[in-house]
């Protein structure tokens, strides 16, 4: 296969078609519109289901129904739309159905703006919906990586009967890069023993998330948690760069990880021993790997396009093993490599201490007028 220039959103949508997407339901919201628009043409062309829903509530519940048939189904949205979908996401989790969701994050809170952000990390990874459930969340840092994660997201969703999310920001959705897309595969609808597709020649089936008997609801919760344990054991993904001899580790996911890599390279050229740890599965979070890393380095810098949402997962993993610093840009601002380089240089000169709170230190730096 040759590499072609593709826009992120369109590449993800086309990759989904090629790996057997049978039904897509979505609602317009920038910066993910190209997913909906691409599929509005492609899905009918290949004889598959596409509906522009009346809202994200409609979309998530259409995808909920479609998933009940055992077909490969997907929806996509951006931050405010993802908030609206949370009820449905909780129902899908409670019914144990495979669904893929693409979240192209934008600046918030509220209506915010349409610029790239990572402000949905907490609501996606730690559950914006009610009850105890855990989506699988994959955070690519390039269009190629996003495309490669599309079949994986479907496979994981179907293997674990779980929601799988591809979490990107508006910049990955909107930019163009050369990518290699997967080959067109034939659609194979799996014959799941739970699919409600008409009780022809078999006993009827019921799919629901209601368990009025509390002891049974508790059992369901325990089953979900056991499955999550399996996922945590088997599905940790991350990438390491220049960490072998590093004294400073930068941790960042998606676009902030990508920008941090440029900063790490620049710092290396100045002789600073720094490397990058980029989680790809942000849920399950590579906590053990981050803990080990903390034992090897002198300090850790967490970089995000939010106010430190992943930082909390890092803090849990690191504990007292290494001092932490945080650098975040908010509201749709993407950090420049130079800003992160400045943070790395500062830490190299004066390593942070274990005392105090990295978020407070960062906030103080952000809000102190520069002389």
């Amino acid at each position, binding site marked *: 296969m040759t590499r072609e220039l593709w826009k992120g959103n369109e590449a993800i949508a086309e990759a989904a078609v090629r790996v057997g997407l*049978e*039904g897509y*339901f979505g609602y317009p919201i920038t910066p993910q519109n190209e997913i909906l628009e691409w599929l509005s043409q492609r899905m009918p062309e290949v004889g598959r*289901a596409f*509906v522009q*829903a*009346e*809202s994200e*509530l*409609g*979309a998530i*519940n*259409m*995808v*909920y*129904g*479609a*998933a*009940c*048939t055992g*077909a490969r*189904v997907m929806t996509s949205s951006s931050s405010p739309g993802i908030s609206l979908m949370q*009820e*449905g996401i909780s*129902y899908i989790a409670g019914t144990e159905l495979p669904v893929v969701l693409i979240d192209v994050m934008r600046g918030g809170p509220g209506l915010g703006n349409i610029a790239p952000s990572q402000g949905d990390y907490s609501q996606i990874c730690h559950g914006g919906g009610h009850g105890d459930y855990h989506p699988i969340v994959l955070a690519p840092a390039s269009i190629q990586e996003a495309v490669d994660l599309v079949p994986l997201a479907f496979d994981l969703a179907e293997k674990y009967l779980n929601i799988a999310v591809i979490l990107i920001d508006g910049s990955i959705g909107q930019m163009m890069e050369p990518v290699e897309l997967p080959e067109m595969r034939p659609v194979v609808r799996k014959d799941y023993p739970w699919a*409600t*597709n*008409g*009780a*022809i*020649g078999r006993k*009827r*089936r*019921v*799919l*629901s*998330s*209601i368990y009025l008997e509390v002891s049974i609801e508790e059992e369901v919760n325990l089953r979900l948690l056991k499955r999550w344990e399996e996922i945590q054991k088997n599905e940790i993904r991350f990438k390491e760069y220049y960490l072998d001899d590093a004294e400073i580790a930068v941790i960042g996911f998606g676009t902030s990880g990508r920008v941090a890599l440029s900063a790490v390279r620049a710092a290396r050229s100045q002789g600073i021993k720094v490397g990058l740890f980029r989680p790809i599965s942000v849920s399950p979070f590579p906590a053990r790997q981050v803990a080990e890393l903390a034992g090897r380095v002198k300090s850790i810098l967490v970089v995000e396009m939010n106010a430190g949402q992943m930082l909390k997962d890092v803090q849990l993993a690191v504990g007292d093993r290494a001092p932490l610093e945080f650098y975040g840009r908010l509201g749709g601002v993407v950090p420049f490599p130079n800003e992160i380089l400045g943070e790395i240089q500062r830490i190299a000169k004066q390593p942070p201490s274990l005392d105090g709170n990295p978020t407070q230190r960062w906030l103080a730096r952000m809000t102190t007028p520069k002389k």
Partner: protein
Amino acid sequence: MATIVQLENLVYSRPAAFTDTPTHYCPGCTHGTAHRLIAEVLDEMKITDRTIGVAPVGCAVFAYNYMDTDFVEAAHGRAPAMATGIKRLLPDRVVFTYQGDGDLASIGMGEIVHAAARGENITVVFINNAIYGMTGGQMAPTTLPGMKTTSSPSGRDVELQGYPIRMAEMLATLDGAGYVVRRSLHDPKNIRLAKKAIRTAFEVQLHGLGFSMVELLSTCSTGWGVTPVESLGWLEQHMIPAFPLGDYKISPSVAAIKL
């Protein structure tokens, strides 16, 4: 074994599309009647094994325990969206939702209107009992002016709480709707007419003629605070004038179906 009723004399039996589970409904509630009518129609049309039901949030949340088809359980109000997802993936299956007035006309207003507007090939059985039964008798969008509920204790004040919504009339204005009618479950004659309408609605779906809905005026003696027998009279006296029975939309292609 001696049977009391000889097969040739049997005029009334449990529909095959019913499960053996007794319903949990209050005495006098017409949810059970509506369930039975659907089951009889599924039997007559021999489509039980091709049908997927979508249960609501409301008193009929356990509808799936009583009808012997595949079933899914929707979030409150979202049954038409869920049915859309199923039907689009399984166009040769029969998909129906069963929804109360809080479910369909309040929280799920967006989903029902757009399913109808898209001409979604699904059938909707809409139970209008003018009240929120399951949560203890609060005001519904279909509660009559002056009617007492637990959240309109001195009667629905239209100045403050607005007016009832007539869903059949409203949805009938949409081009995607093929068949929209209102019937009542308060006496045998009307129950027979209701069954005929449910049959037609499923036929509309089988013929691919768009969205079909049968609104059924129903009782809630518990929520209304009357006896089961009184509730039937109350429905006839108060609900039918506010929600006139009739055919609100029969598209020309639907009119041409021969039953």
